[in-house]
């Protein structure tokens, strides 16, 4: 594959006690691409993200990201390589303020010693404000993150990834449990942050997918069932049968 691809997943398989959650998968993401991954429950969507970010180890296959094989790196090294991942349920530090949530996620001060003697710079303060603005949480910066609404927690976690400026951002169901206005705001947010980076989004909400989707990948039983623009996918008979038709 050419260097134009940011992420190249090749012949990837993982099995859990004989069950193949991902089966010989090939999956490519370009730079500056927003890719939506859809599929029925158990299709392997979350597992795919787990494999890319190192949470689950592949049984076989390769994951090349900027010419590095992610299957050989540990979780934090994968983050350092430029991959950010948001979990399905909002994972934020509820006992810390929004500001501290963002600061802790910023690069720098990631070793024991450097975190002990870490000093907040003006640049970091500006960066935190900038991110807070992007994720609509400027007014909540000094609020305890546990007091945020569900939707705001989702945004905060996205912000915690943005502050790392990852080249690949992976979001697992970012609008689950959101109200309609929140969903629209999230779509606008995604369209803004996809500049200069690739974004992979797992989503069930088809209206949301239409709002943000360029290219859609449909997973089914650990394999790619179809891939292409949204309107083409919507009319694909196999996709309608296993997923959209329900």
């Amino acid at each position, binding site marked *: 594959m050419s260097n134009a691809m940011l992420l190249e997943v090749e012949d990837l398989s993982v099995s859990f006690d004989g069950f193949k959650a991902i089966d010989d998968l090939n999956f490519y993401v370009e730079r500056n691409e927003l890719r939506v991954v859809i599929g029925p429950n158990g299709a392997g969507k979350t597992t795919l993200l787990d494999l890319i*970010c190192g*949470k689950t180890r592949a049984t076989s296959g390769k994951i090349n990201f900027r010419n590095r094989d992610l299957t050989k790196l*540990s*979780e*934090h090294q994968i*983050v*350092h390589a430029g991959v*950010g*991942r948001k*979990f399905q349920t909002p*994972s*934020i*530090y*509820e*006992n*810390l*303020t929004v500001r*501290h949530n963002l*600061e*802790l*996620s910023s*690069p720098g*001060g*990631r*070793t*024991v010693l450097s*975190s*002990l*003697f*870490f000093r907040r710079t003006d640049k970091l303060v500006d960066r935190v404000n900038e991110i807070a603005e992007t994720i609509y949480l400027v007014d909540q910066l*000094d609020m*305890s993150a*546990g007091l945020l609404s569900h939707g705001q927690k989702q945004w905060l*976690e996205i912000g*915690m990834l943005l502050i*790392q400026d990852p080249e690949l951002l992976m979001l697992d169901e970012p609008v689950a449990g959101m109200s309609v206005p929140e969903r629209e705001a999230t779509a606008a947010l995604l369209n803004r942050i996809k500049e200069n980076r690739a974004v992979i989004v797992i989503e069930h909400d088809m209206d949301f997918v239409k709002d943000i989707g360029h290219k859609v990948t449909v997973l089914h039983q650990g394999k790619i069932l179809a891939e292409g623009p949204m309107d083409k996918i919507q009319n694909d008979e196999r996709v309608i049968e296993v997923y959209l038709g329900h």
Partner: protein
Amino acid sequence: MNRLLKAFGGASGLTQIGVLAVVLMIVLPVTTDLFHLNLFGKYLTYTFVAVGLVLCWGYGGILSLGQGVFFGLGGYCMAMFLKLEASTPEATKIQTTPGIPDFMDWNQITALPWFWQPFHSFGFTLFAIVAVPAVFAWVIGYAMFKRRVGGVYFAIITQAIATIMTILIVGQQGYTGGINGITDLRTLMGWDIRTDSAQYILYFACCAALVLCLLISAFVLNSRFGRLLIAMRDQEDRVRFSGYDVANMKVFVFVLASVFAAIGGAFFTLQVGFMSPTFVGAVASIEMVVFCAVGGRLSVVGAAVGAFAVSWAKTNLSDSFPQVWPVVMGALFIGVVMFFPRGMAGLVADYLPRLWRKRATRKPAAPAGTAVSSTRKPPAGAPQEQHS
């Protein structure tokens, strides 16, 4: 100056440490006799362990039920030095082999074992008091945290290590003094530690060391590392997937807590005059967790006061009702965990400002910077960040 102040938790954090220092170093010595002061000195050595547990357990979420091991390692290192000094050839000339500790002679050992040799040097001993527990904690921590062993499994393993350590010390009595421990300690570099003046000096040295440990804790908790501890406790995966090597962070805080415990152990030996496996085992280790929980596992000063208060209660209660004490302590632990998860420090933080406000009616609430005295009540088991 301002920045320095902030690095240690701001004015409110330092005030707490200052008040404690004044009580320990001025109020207690002035108001009590030497017998009681020496007793307080003994309690004080437990506070080091409790302070370490605040960092490791309260903030880091790593419950160690084996802190007695590190208390013991520090204490034994100090005791080995003192014992060698007390075992001069002249003082031990009635032994079969003069010049070695008496218990070795009783156990038919005829030469000083190799690992006892370096403890002739006081410099080495001071180094060992910190280094031996640090290396041991590092090995345990590295082996477990790299394999992602945590939570209740970590607690059980550390408790097992404490038990194993006791068995080892008791079993190897020729090298360790066995169940009696290392006793009959007299001088520190020629200075008799049993005299009244020495007791006073050691008490003050112990207080000073405690204040130093409290300042180090305040610094750690107010750094980015301190917030990371809270973050790891609440959302370990999020920290890992934000680019941190979580295991390294945990190893560090566990080692730091262990070094604190060892310093306490060394002062125990100096002030009480012996060290024995009783302070190493599972029971002693769990007692130390109770100290920390009762005082408040999110407040270093609270935990120090808790260690002090519970030990005091133990001395008084177990003298008059020895059978009742274990039950009381168990009930205390369960009660605190269920009803006051933040311990005495939490009660003070919740109720003191309320009393304050009753007096000065309708004054604005405490500014956001002093979260310690805020009345906001977090859900049980999910204590709030203290130093924002």
